[in-house]
């Protein structure tokens, strides 16, 4: 590890005939009952940004885990710089110069950048952390790759983009010459994505290799030098981003036409289902996290809430669901003021809820599917009869949901934890739809689900809208917001700062509003 990135430059300086930085030949990884990866062929040249694209569940993560030493393939060989290598653990991978930047950051909030970067491989002097040496090396890395990091800032005070650069610095600090970035843009707004791409160019210029995992095709075409497409566990081909269109890529990826979130004609009716009047939610410290939110959702209307995460959307959802007390304002459902109602009464009155974090709020992971069908519907048939659980009713209705919503699972007794994210989400959507709510609160309804499930969920939302359901859609996927919404509200620092017409809006413009660049209220993040 001590050789550091310097060693990479020599290799990068070689000609095009130099061995591949990473080469995978015929990698197959089986789990009992499933083949997660089959005959994977991957060739990544040194000093390039190589994108791996595929739907969620296509096998990208399994492949990356193989490459990062988290498990060993059943067949096939891994060659690093032309040498056959066996990776038994992530430690082996790190020693071989492979670093992983995870999608979910693994940083300690109350540590400084320096402490986070060195954590686990601290330079020591006389048994104590050698801060001077660590600081020097981090400054060095920061300068060389234009990461713009101050070693002594608390991670707590950093934005998402900065945090990601800390993660990258962590990997570089350990001497990585090949970086794997797992869905790095998932948490970024468009402006931050551009900054990240700048950093990647910098890494490339210094001779490092970047493996970039994504399913966002426009980004991939913008940043990658070459692309490998994975579908159903195997590599279906590679593509040159300069000559391949997004549409061609998409078809390689899904093997059929790409779904679109675009809604058809407007179905908005006059009757409001939800009215928020000056809804204010206070944080523990008394600071308003939702500040005077006023909006109306009508029957057959999808109102989208756009905003960088953490600007009060989650609290707004909690306030509507009755999970958080209001500091001021009223919530009106139909023509009833429900501000003082309990969550259960609100649900019974016809609010469906697709929570942002399905593991935390949407399911009982260690309970079977049919019990998850009851969750949130404990007072309504077919799940219950009087004070008793209606087992056969709940089971039959779970089977119906699994059939109608294409939830793939062995049976209603399967534990929810055993399902993939997409199938869990389809079960939740099916469950919430089954009580025919007047209003649906959909927080990130397609987060972390594969393209197939995503288009299915979009279709369901569109159908529900056409039938007159009012939908409040909170999402970080700008295409989803623009495509599905009839009206868009932008949320910034707890306030609804702009009302936009999605029909004439580009994701870039929306991104500008989200960071406050368009309303002149303050500088962007």
């Amino acid at each position: 590890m001590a050789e550091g990135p310097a060693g990479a430059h020599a290799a990068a300086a070689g000609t095009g005939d130099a061995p591949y930085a990473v080469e995978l030949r015929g990698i197959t990884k089986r789990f009992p009952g499933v083949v997660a990866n089959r005959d994977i062929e991957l060739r990544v040249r040194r000093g390039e940004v190589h994108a791996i694209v595929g739907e969620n569940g296509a096998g990208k993560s399994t492949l990356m885990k193989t490459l990062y030493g988290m498990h060993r393939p059943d067949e096939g060989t891994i060659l690093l710089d032309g040498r056959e290598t066996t990776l038994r653990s992530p430690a082996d991978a790190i020693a071989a110069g492979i670093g992983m930047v995870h999608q979910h950051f693994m940083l300690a909030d109350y540590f400084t950048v320096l402490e986070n970067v060195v954590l686990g491989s601290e330079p020591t002097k006389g048994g104590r952390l050698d801060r001077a040496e660590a600081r020097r090396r981090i400054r060095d890395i920061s300068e060389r790759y234009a990461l713009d990091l101050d070693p002594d800032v608390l991670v707590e005070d950093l934005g998402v983009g900065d945090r990601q650069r800390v993660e990258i610095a962590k990997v570089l600090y350990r001497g990585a010459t090949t970086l794997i970035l797992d869905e790095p843009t998932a948490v970024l707004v468009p402006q931050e994505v551009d900054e990240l791409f700048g950093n990647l160019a910098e890494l490339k210029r210094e001779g490092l290799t970047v493996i970039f995992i994504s399913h966002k095709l426009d980004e991939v075409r913008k940043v990658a030098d070459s692309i490998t497409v994975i579908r159903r566990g195997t590599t279906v081909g590679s593509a040159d981003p300069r000559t391949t269109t997004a549409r061609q890529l998409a078809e390689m990826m899904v093997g059929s036409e790409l779904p679109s979130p675009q809604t058809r004609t407007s179905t908005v009716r006059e009757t409001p289902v939800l009215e928020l009047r000056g809804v204010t939610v206070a944080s523990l410290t008394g600071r308003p996290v939702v500040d005077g939110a006023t909006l109306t959702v009508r029957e057959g209307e999808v109102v989208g809430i756009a905003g960088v995460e953490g600007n009060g959307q989650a609290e707004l959802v909690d306030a509507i669901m009755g999970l958080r007390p209001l500091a001021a304002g009223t919530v009106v459902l139909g023509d009833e003021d429900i501000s003082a109602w309990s969550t259960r009464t609100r649900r019974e009155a016809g609010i469906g809820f697709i929570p942002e974090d399905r593991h935390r709020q949407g399911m009982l992971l260690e309970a079977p599917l049919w019990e998850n069908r009851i969750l949130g519907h404990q007072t309504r048939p077919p799940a219950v009869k009087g004070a008793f659980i209606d087992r056969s009713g709940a089971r039959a209705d779970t089977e119906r949901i699994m059939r109608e919503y294409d939830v793939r699972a062995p049976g209603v007794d399967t534990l929810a934890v055993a399902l993939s994210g997409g199938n869990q989400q389809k079960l939740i959507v099916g469950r919430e739809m089954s009580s025919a709510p007047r209003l649906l609160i959909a927080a990130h309804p397609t987060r972390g689900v594969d393209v197939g499930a995503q288009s299915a969920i979009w279709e369901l939302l569109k159908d529900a809208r056409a039938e007159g359901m009012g939908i409040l859609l909170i999402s970080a996927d700008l295409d989803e917001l623009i495509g599905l919404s009839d009206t868009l509200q932008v949320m910034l620092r707890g306030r609804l700062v702009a009302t936009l017409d999605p029909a004439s809006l580009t994701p870039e413009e929306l991104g500008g509003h989200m960071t406050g660049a368009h309303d002149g209220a303050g500088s962007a993040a």
Partner: protein
Amino acid sequence: MTALRRLGSALLAPAIAVVFAVVITALVILLIGENPSTALQVLVDFGDTPAQQTQAIVVILNRAVPLFLAGLAVSVAFRMGLFNIGVEGQYRMATVLAAGAGAAVALPAPLHILLVIVVAMAVGALWASIVAILKVTRGVSEVISSIMLNFIALGTASWLLTGPLRGSEEGAAIITTEDLPESGQFPGLNGLFDVVGLAQPRGELYGFLLVAIVAGIAISVLLKRTRFGFDLRATGLSPSAATASGIDARGMVLKTMLISGAIAGLIGLPDLMGRTHHFGTEFTAGLGFLGIAVALLGRNSPIGIAFAALLFAFLDRAAVPLQFADIPASVVTIIQGTIVLAVVIANEIARQLTRRRAERDTGQGGPPAAENPPGGPAGTAGSRIDEHQGTGA
């Protein structure tokens, strides 16, 4: 998953734990220079005559009844993620007050028995409700408050015994409450032995066994078949998901503690109404703590707790005979302690095995590294960052 496999995985952990405990205990007995096989013989030797053998069964069952009730009380709270360590205090308070109330009134037999039971359950529930109220209004951890309330309960019970409810002679070595009149005593079940053709034992089989069975069935139905039970279990599995589904978490804490405390109130009654007829300084202690062990071993299911209570009672019976064989009676405590320790570990292993198998069966289960970063459930890392983004943006 077939029923057989499910049963297998349910039995796996306790079985491993018991075997492990037996091995450890054998080692301990060897270490103190005695013969483990002698100890084993004593454990399974119920006596020579039929009367002795039925007597051994009566001793085991009579001990198992309060253990079962204690395990049940603990498990109800545990099912929703509450650690009711206060069962000990709850049953002491309940028993002393029920003994006092029962001795103070004269009623026809069924009513008298009912009164004692109702008083005990009410006192247990009330005492447990203090824990619940502290938790929902002030956020006091139920572990801390229930442990502290145990001390207060023991002290208060002693004061009640030596003061207002004292029934024994001034200066007697053993202080007791006044005896329950005959109408307040629970009739025994020894008629049963004649029916099945077994020899009559010396002692009396507690009639309270029936109450315990009814309580077990009632709790089982409550947990598995009712809406309330669903809410309770859902809260135990995921408090955040339960709240989002409309369950009132505070209300559930209060109701669950009331039920747990009411069952805890019953624990002392088999001995009180079936044998001693009074509460006193010599009254059976420690049942509340053993209840925690029994609930753990029984994996919080009423059937499991019944078996766990029988096992503990079976071990307890050997305490005296072991001493006749020159083996310290504390061997029993060692076995029990090791079982509990082992069962905690084995439960966790079995849980992971079941979960892993479930994931394998579907071949889905998502990429654990990406969706479940170590150190917390999925999303915590992300949402932490997101929260800060608000100030950073």
